[in-house]
């Protein structure tokens, strides 16, 4: 005889049941990336900088997406979603007023409280800017809590720049250093730096590796080269904070897809202080 458990029983609740969020804003950013603002029905998401949620459309599926806004927007939060698979393509077709399923927030976060009084060096590549932005905006909103703030951003070509009005604002700010680069561009399309992200490092003013924390978020290929450059600048592993990408399918440390050696990136990460994972062969 098959019996059914009522999901309202506290300790029998399903960890896979999403809550409902409504889209309130949508703005295309690049050919593949679109900005969305969502609103949860009954509560603030309660996330921290660099965490992610599982977003879903019934009948299509679920996907892990980073939150790009800092906490403090009431029940609202922002994401930038790249159209790369079935779920993300379906979300791109939604319009304001439409609903999605949300589970989370999940994972570890950038330790913004602990970093007070320190210099921050953000090194972001492509869509890596999305999770980093929650920490960057927080640091800018609380500018007095931090010493020097440096932001590096690199992307494939000028058409891939995200949050362009914010990038332009950062560029004009006198209280931070913002440098950007593109891997390649058409003639006349771009008058800034051309080259991979590490080509920005020689342009930096002196950085004290003992008083600075580097926060790195970018495509998998980027980490090794950025960390090598930071080593040249005499950064210690404890001063390097990375956010790693994996396939975080369930978000609750069960399904196994995001395993990195003995760690589940969805729960033990995605944000790691480098000295805690440096020894893991599958990390970088």
């Amino acid at each position, binding site marked *: *005889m*098959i*019996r*059914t*458990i009522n*999901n309202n029983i506290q*300790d*029998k*609740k*399903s*960890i*896979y*049941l*999403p809550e*409902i*969020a409504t889209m309130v804003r949508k703005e295309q950013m690049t050919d593949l990336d679109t900005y969305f603002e969502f609103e949860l029905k009954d509560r603030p998401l309660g996330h921290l900088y660099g965490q992610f949620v599982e977003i*879903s*459309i*019934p*009948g*299509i*599926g*679920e*996907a892990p997406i980073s939150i790009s806004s800092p906490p403090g927007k009431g029940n609202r939060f922002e994401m930038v979603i*790249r159209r*790369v*698979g079935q779920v*993300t393509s379906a979300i791109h077709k939604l319009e304001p007023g439409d*609903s*999605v*399923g949300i589970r989370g927030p999940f994972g570890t976060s950038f330790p913004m409280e602990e970093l007070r009084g320190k210099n921050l060096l953000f090194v972001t590549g492509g869509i890596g800017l999305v999770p980093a932005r929650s920490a960057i905006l927080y640091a800018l909103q609380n500018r007095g809590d931090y010493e020097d703030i440096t932001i590096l951003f690199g992307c494939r070509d000028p058409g891939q720049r995200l949050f362009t009005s914010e990038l332009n604002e950062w560029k004009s700010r006198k209280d931070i250093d913002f440098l950007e680069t593109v891997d390649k561009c058409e003639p006349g399309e771009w008058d800034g730096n051309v080259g991979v992200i590490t080509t920005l490092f020689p342009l930096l003013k002196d950085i004290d590796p003992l008083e600075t924390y580097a926060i790195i978020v970018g*495509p*998998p290929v980027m980490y090794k080269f950025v960390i090598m450059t930071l080593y040249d600048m005499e950064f210690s592993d404890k001063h390097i904070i990375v956010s790693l*990408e*994996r*396939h975080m*399918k*369930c978000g*609750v*440390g*069960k*399904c*196994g*897809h995001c*395993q*990195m*050696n*003995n760690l589940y990136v969805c*729960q033990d990460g995605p944000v790691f202080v480098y000295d805690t994972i440096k020894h893991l*062969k*599958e990390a970088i």
Partner: protein
Amino acid sequence: MEIVKISERDFNEFIDTKIAEKESKIVSVVRKGTHFAFDELDSASSMCLDYDVTLLPPKKYFQPPKETMLRFVPKKADSYEAVNEYESLTLIGVHYYDLAAIYLMDRAFSDGEKDANYLVKRQNSLLIGLYPTRFFKYRFSNSVVKGDLPYKVADLMMIQMGNGYYALEIVTEKGRSFIEQAKYKKSDYSLKEIENAKNRIKDDQKLPVAVELTPDYLKQHHSHPVWEVFGEKCYSCGSCVFVCPTCYCFDMRDEVDLTLKNGERVRVWDGCMLESFATCAGGHNFRKNRAARFRHRIFRKGVNMPLKYHYWGCVGCGRCADACTSSIAGPVKILKYIEENK
């Protein structure tokens, strides 16, 4: 621990009354051609407790190959509804190494976030363990399942004593109230007789390295040629992980019926040996080559699970070695190769 004695005839008669009651699904080992499998009993006479190994471990009852987790109306996010269906289950004749595996599965689904779909099925099950009476050429449980691990999940443990009798160790109160309904006697076996009967079958296979030392041993051989040599022969078919009693990795996918009006999010078995397992949206595969996947499976059992649960993640059932098309999956063979090619 209290031990009782019951004749095979009385035990089978009792099981037949339990089947007739229909209060619990009665599952045990039955013949499937030349093999054995766990299946629902319609009569105790089809129960075959003298078996070598079952094709699949009993995990299929707690984490089914396919399981509905949510129901919904397609594209309507406010229609999501959690599904958690279970039935009372009595599992008879689970070899001690499969019990050890259930303990590891319990940890995986209850440590941290609690997985109600798994745990409710487990809470509504009664496990009657068994010591093997038949040799299986790939089994090496003796060298990996240590101490009282099987007793952490068993409700009763059966020992075949010969002459048509079983000894039954009463492990839990749940087990006691089950067997109290049967015609049992006080055990008149000596502890030595019981121990001898438990250890009647000595595994032919043995891990070449002491199980406590394997995590460090494997880490030392992270870059050993074995992963490339064996990985090259791997078809990435996933047989080894699907038959493994401690593999629980899964995928979630949405299925919509033909009317497009009803849908379900289902959980299905998945495995790290399949090529696309660690692939992210956008196509980057974090374990692209076969050697890396091959090593990951062994490291998961031999390094990562011991780190997390303090027990080896492999219970030595030998099913992977038996199921592998290329005859490369067995941990004994892999460790032997390392030993011989240091």
